[in-house]
């Protein structure tokens, strides 16, 4: 803490969302383009995918507000495609059909599923978009978490396994090898949507922006007109304070944890992220933050590392260049840092 207090401004509000300034402030700044860097952020946001999606622009980039809106429209489009909370989405449609037939999938959705399959293999099964029956079995989908009977877990496990979803790359079809299998892109969808939104911004000539979804998925476009990069604190809800300060240029962040959704039985804590390989809640990692080239990857790996622990993270980071992992482990006072990302600097580790 002592170290942190030296390194960070004393302003205790610094990590909270900015309060709105008078409208006049915005327009005053817009009339002063000569200023080298504005001293305020413009946050353009809306609700999508059950959370706040936000595009943060530096003050002098106010002209890009329409582009930020268009990027958020892209998120809405992807929600309509990927959500399992609407009957009308392409994914809901696929889930209905793929147990019965070789179901043709929307092109973009299919590409994302191919990527999911590769990530499932790379993470030794720790990232698995078919794990919904387990979350349901543990009651986390209804927020009525409880410890299920062993046979309930076994019954749910039968319906889990990305390898049970056969992807035909030529015909671009999906076929489930058993009834009860279902795909849910909750662990990668926000990141993927941010990647697409960021691509829209770049194509529209936006050089600097920070995009985020729920704070758990982040994409940095450019450096925010600060050569050190965007300042992002890395938090862990179970520690209730940041564990690291990150500077990021052109990269993405994904954070997973089980500090918010959990229950306790007989002194043992059960978190909402279920290890698809065992059917039991993941243990040992309080939070996992991954910095990588894109947010879909960062999201998937952060979930996988929460489930698979430091051992899996070490193996994945060793085999793949350009991934930085910050793991807060049960019983370890300092976060563990693995690998590196070219646009990321860890300025501070707070213990």
């Amino acid at each position: 803490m002592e170290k942190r207090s030296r390194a960070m401004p004393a302003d205790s509000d610094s990590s909270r969302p900015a309060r709105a300034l008078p409208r006049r402030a915005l327009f005053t700044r817009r009339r002063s383009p000569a200023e080298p860097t504005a001293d305020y952020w413009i946050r353009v946001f809306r609700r999508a995918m059950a959370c706040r999606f936000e595009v943060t622009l530096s003050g002098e980039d106010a002209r890009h507000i329409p582009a930020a809106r268009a990027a958020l429209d892209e998120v809405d489009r992807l929600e309509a495609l990927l959500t399992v909370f609407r009957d009308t989405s392409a994914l809901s449609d696929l889930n209905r059909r793929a147990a019965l037939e070789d179901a043709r999938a929307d092109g973009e959705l299919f590409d994302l599923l191919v990527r999911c399959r590769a990530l499932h293999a790379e993470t030794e099964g720790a990232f698995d978009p078919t794990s919904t029956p387990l979350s349901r079995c543990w009651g986390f989908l209804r927020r009525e978490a409880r410890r299920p009977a062993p046979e309930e877990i076994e019954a749910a496990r039968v319906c889990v396994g990305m390898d049970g979803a056969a992807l035909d790359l030529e015909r671009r079809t999906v076929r489930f090898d058993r009834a009860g299998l279902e795909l849910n892109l909750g662990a990668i969808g926000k990141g993927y949507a941010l990647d697409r939104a960021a691509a829209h911004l770049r194509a529209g000539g936006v050089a600097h922006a920070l995009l985020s979804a729920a704070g758990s998925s982040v994409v940095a476009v450019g450096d925010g007109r600060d050569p050190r990069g965007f300042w992002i604190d890395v938090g862990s809800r179970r520690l209730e304070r940041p564990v690291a300060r990150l500077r990021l240029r052109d990269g993405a962040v994904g954070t997973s944890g089980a500090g918010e959704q959990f229950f306790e039985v007989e002194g043992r804590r059960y978190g909402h992220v279920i290890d698809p390989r065992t059917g039991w809640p993941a243990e040992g990692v309080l939070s996992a933050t991954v910095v990588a080239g894109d947010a879909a990857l960062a999201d998937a790996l952060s979930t996988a590392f929460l489930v698979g622990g430091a051992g899996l993270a070490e193996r994945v980071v060793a085999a793949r260049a350009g991934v930085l992992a910050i793991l807060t482990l049960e019983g370890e006072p300092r976060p563990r840092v693995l690998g590196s990302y070219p646009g990321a600097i860890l300025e501070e580790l707070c213990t």
Partner: protein
Amino acid sequence: MHLTPEDKELGRRNFLKALAGTPALAALGGALAVRGPIKGGPVRVGAIAIGSHGRGHMHRPDLAYCNLVAVADINPDSLRRIDEELAKRKRPPVKHYSDWREMLQKEDLEAIITAPPLGAHAEITVGCLEAGKHVFCEKMMAWDDAGCDAMVDAARKSGKVVEIGYQRYYNRMYQAAYEGIVKAGKLGDLYTARIVWNRNKNWRREAGPAPQGLDPKAWGYEDYDHLINWRLYKKHSQGLTAELGSHMVNVTNWFFGAKAKSVVASGGIFRFKDREVPDHIYANFEYPDGRTAVFTSTESDPFEGNYEAFFGTKGTLIFESEKNAYFFDHSGDGKAAATEIEVGPKTGPVLETTESRPPDAVGRQATTAGTMATGDPYKTEVERWCAAIRTGRPVECGPERAMSSAKACIRANQALDQGKRLDV
């Protein structure tokens, strides 16, 4: 209506959210309830024909409203059971009669609760009103049109408080939905209701031998089985349409703000050949302005259970088993949420990355937490009727309201028998 757990969670939260800007569930509950003790003290009540359903009305109401003095039932077994029920709940004992007319002559009663076989509703209700008693009569109103008309007429002439027992009117969930969703226009233009009650059971109960001292024939029942299983015999019953469907038609009338104008029906005695009323019935009730309620009741597959679903241009509202409500808002589907803009100083980090919070991680919208508060509709309806007797405050389902749903259900059975569309 088979909804996935996720659908239910979403629909339940949407329902509560839709009510957030309107009088809340709790407030509506407060408006429904009455606060005792009431001026003038508890109403001196007699009960007539207290079978399994009638007994429920006996022990629920607060003693501050309803002072049960005597009961009349032709079946000694029912009288024994009400004694047991009251003793179990530490309520005062009551006097017994087999003939309700004798009870009216001998007891100083203000009001009557009655739940006899449907065929006897009109006779008992009209008799009690003519004797100057207020009446709470279990639904459906009456076995035929003439019975409904006679009850309405007697209620008017007597000036007494008459309520027909449709407990959904006293269920906070339905009241809140009516105020906060239907009246507030959140369903858009409402064209269709689907009202369904499916189960897989033989309606028949084990009758056994008649208790000593009971001669069913003397009371118009062919034998003891006809008394116990009156729901299966046409002379006493209008079958599933009345016993299950009338609840739902009544709610549809309420939410549509209209009465059915005609009905077509099909169905029959397909599975259980031991009865005179259909075990499968399908009826389409046609309302003014192109609205239709489709009623299904089957005694074969309980998969869909029982529900009322209202389909509008902007949303769908579903009540499941009188216990849960779900709302699906279609007005926002596919449309972007409003974009907002904030401006803030560049002090500290641009953001903190953490795991997403629960409302973000599951479901679609973060809304009010809470459980569905239905209250105890059976208790409230009797208490409100007692309070109405004392204060003159109108009851929710008086004879006119009950008559429109009863006649629609009677007509549905006639449409089935005659094989044609009939005007209600």
